[in-house]
């Protein structure tokens, strides 16, 4: 079946550097994408979302890029901080769908 997946399971960056977390999706009908952050022992928390009619959306220190041609999604975190250490999930949904499809997640570790 179609699924959302991530390129790398782990990512280690130096504090202050920028982080880029990638995600590939395969469902052509997906038109809404979300990035979630999950800290150890907690539930996922919404970070940022993007609709398929956009290719870039910015939040506070975070940017999501969407490339529909190659079905690729990325999350960029500027000036990564120790508090950014977590597992990051991308998820997709059909605009009129009832549920989200989640990838396995990428564990981001920030080194001081």
């Amino acid at each position, binding site marked *: 079946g179609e699924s959302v997946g991530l390129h790398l399971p782990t990512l280690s960056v130096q504090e202050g550097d920028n982080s880029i977390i990638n995600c590939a999706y395969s469902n052509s009908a997906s038109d809404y994408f979300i990035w979630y952050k999950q800290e150890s*022992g907690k*539930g*996922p928390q*919404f970070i940022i979302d993007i609709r398929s009619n956009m290719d870039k959306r910015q939040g506070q220190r975070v940017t999501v890029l969407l490339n529909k041609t190659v079905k690729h999604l990325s999350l960029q975190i500027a000036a990564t901080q120790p508090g950014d250490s977590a597992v990051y999930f991308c998820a997709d949904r059909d605009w009129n*769908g*009832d*549920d989200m499809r989640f990838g*396995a997640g990428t564990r981001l570790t920030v080194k001081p």
Partner: protein
Amino acid sequence: NAGVTQTPKFRILKIGQSMTLQCTQDMNHNYMYWYRQDPGMGLKLIYYSVGAGITDKGEVPNGYNVSRSTTEDFPLRLELAAPSQTSVYFCASSRTGQGTNTIYFGEGSWLTVV
């Protein structure tokens, strides 16, 4: 500001036992969901509900049952627990299922079946 609250946080079950994971939300959301998360894996949808009295199967419903008698509550029942049900369970809710409606998650329930 409670959001989505689920209990218990941790539970150990013996094979064949039954239990109910409780979930309640105070945001007046129509949609509620139960996901399970196995180690190193993403979230898989077990059941969801689009409103009181309505429930639907997700990707992995076998071995579970749900009910939605009120808008606030969405308990998940495990009948005849099996080791394969060892996982972390997350309850979630959203205002609706469509569009840019963010799904809010509870803190998780760690279940071990031995």
